[in-house]
């Protein structure tokens, strides 16, 4: 059937272009369903061409077409194609690699003062409870939760206390314990991110509490002359674990600071900026806690020699320091 000559100008406008729009629609449907990675090269090459043609058609439609359905169709199609065309093309593996090589360390360096403050708060908490428990061992329960203490309390004999530092459990118990600690610590770290929104106050409390728990236990073991054994027990994983907790706390503090003092940006822009980079810090900290969990649950139970345990702690300290100070720096 031969096409009749249209009376209306917009009819021929649409006739000439609707195949382009349909092709784009089909392509966008596929991209949304299967992802860009599964598209053939010639189809992918068509995408920007079709997209630009449709964008310009939308411009015309807005200014000089009165077919409401067509206008709505083009609006929706351009909106969807825009999101497909300008979506990031980086693969997940690449993102993770870049993150581990330098992105994480860079984000941490950007909040180095917050890290320092968070670390000091942890130390202050530890010092307070250390002093109090050293004076009066009954104040121990103010700082250490009975459930978490696991037999490490002032009622225990020195021999029992020593045993908690060198006990070997069965394999399943080990794994369960490591997993519990990992999920607990990570959840707390992730909470610190969200709670940064509340001006950072809950984060300070969290750091103080962690410090106090640690200080209380330290005081108990010091009072029984088990100082060397205690530190050999806590440090191999504690170096990693406490660093991660301090980093999460620092991230929460940085968010809280931006909420209060957005600086030159509007508050919403400032929050989005800090939120994005602190998300990276939290993700990295969760990875650190995973490392700590493995060390805590497996290595520490297997390695019973005290010098070896200290060696492990020193190694981790050096590794983390080197990583955070150097990774991702541009070489001159």
């Amino acid at each position, binding site marked *: 059937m031969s096409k009749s000559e249209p009376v209306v100008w*917009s009819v021929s406008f649409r006739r000439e272009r609707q195949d382009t729009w*349909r092709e784009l629609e089909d392509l966008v449907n596929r991209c*949304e369903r299967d992802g860009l990675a599964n598209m053939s090269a010639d189809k992918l090459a068509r995408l920007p061409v079709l997209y630009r043609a449709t964008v310009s058609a939308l411009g015309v439609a807005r200014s000089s077409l009165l077919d409401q359905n067509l206008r709505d169709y083009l609006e929706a199609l351009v909106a969807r194609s825009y999101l497909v065309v300008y979506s990031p093309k980086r693969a997940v593996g690449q*993102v993770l690699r870049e993150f581990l090589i330098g992105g994480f360390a860079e984000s941490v360096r950007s909040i180095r003062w917050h890290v320092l403050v968070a670390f000091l708060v942890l130390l202050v908490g530890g010092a307070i409870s250390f002093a109090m428990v050293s004076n009066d061992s009954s104040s121990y329960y103010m700082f250490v939760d009975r459930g978490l203490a696991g037999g490490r309390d002032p009622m225990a004999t020195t021999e029992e206390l020593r045993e908690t530092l060198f006990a070997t459990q069965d394999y399943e118990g080990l794994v369960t314990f490591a997993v519990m600690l990992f999920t607990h610590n990570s959840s707390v770290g992730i909470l610190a991110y*969200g709670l940064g929104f509340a001006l950072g106050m809950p984060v300070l409390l969290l750091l103080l509490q962690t410090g106090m728990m640690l200080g209380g236990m330290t005081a108990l073991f010091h009072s029984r002359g088990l100082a060397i054994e205690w530190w050999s027990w806590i440090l191999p994983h504690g170096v990693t674990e406490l660093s991660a907790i301090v980093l999460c706390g620092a991230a929460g503090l940085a968010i809280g600071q931006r909420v209060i003092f957005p600086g030159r940006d509007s508050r919403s822009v400032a929050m*989005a900026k800090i939120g994005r980079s602190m998300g990276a810090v939290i993700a990295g900290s969760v990875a650190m806690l995973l490392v700590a969990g493995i060390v805590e649950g497996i290595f520490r139970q297997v390695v019973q020699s005290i010098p070896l345990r200290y060696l492990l702690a020193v190694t981790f300290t050096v590794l983390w320091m080197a990583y955070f100070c150097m990774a991702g720096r541009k070489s001159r």
Partner: protein
Amino acid sequence: MDGLLLHGGAQITMTTAARTNSEPEPTMVTVRTPEGMLLHFQLASVSERFVAMAIDLMFVGLALGLASLILSFAFGMAMPLLGFFFLRHCYFLWFETRGKGTTFGKRRLHLRVIRADGGPLTMEILLARNLTRDVEFFVPFVVLIAPQMLFADHEGLVRLAASMWVLVPLAVPFWHPQNQRLGDLLAGTQVIVAPPVAMLRDLADADSSNAKNADSASAMARFTFANSQLEIYGEHELKVLEDLLRKSSALGAKKAQRAAAKSIAKRIGFADVRAIDLYEKEFLQAFYAAQRGHLEQQMLLGKRRLQKREH
């Protein structure tokens, strides 16, 4: 029957005006593409987002139940714990990354995460918006259904006060003018609703119309309009007419079309009333095509008429 064409007129005119002036509406988010085109997205409501999340959480719950059932035989408590942690935190991150800002639940409701400034969504942005789910949903949820789990050591007023405090993040999207939740604020994202629109046939195109039999085609050809007859109605009436023609299969559409045809014929002074009685739909289509052609031509010349001319 002018009443039909006037129905809802004021409201529709306002949105038309807003769109032409590209003023931001409170429930719209406007994004400028690199081509310089302003795109308007409709923001999703809190209820739509909640339903989408409920659908997603159903999947998470199902996967979790199955996984822990199988894994608990092999590894005791450890694996279900680990599975719960990773599923809770990674489900949304993983699927939003894979699906360019959508998950199963979001897709069902045509929802999508976009950056508030229109830029590309990166993984770190999606991470930032999903790290807050504990604070915003899971912890308040526990407080709502079983506060004794979270505040075991406290009772009565203390527990109540603590619970209120924990519920605050849950309420953020209700306060926020653009329904952003805490995670959206920290990631700079917004959730929009974008239902797909199908391209329907061109009502002004005689070839694509339903003028399949020669009878109605020749009837349409008989309806011609003088310029003076096309100077009366405006863009709004054209839109109402388009809706009326597109809904011609709806209940009572026939009657409404007949009434509209009569009222238009009377208003523009169309002489051949007998032909309208026989072919009211063809008359409306012919008038729509002629009117649209006329208004579009005027638009090209920079003259727009949004509303019909008063007497």
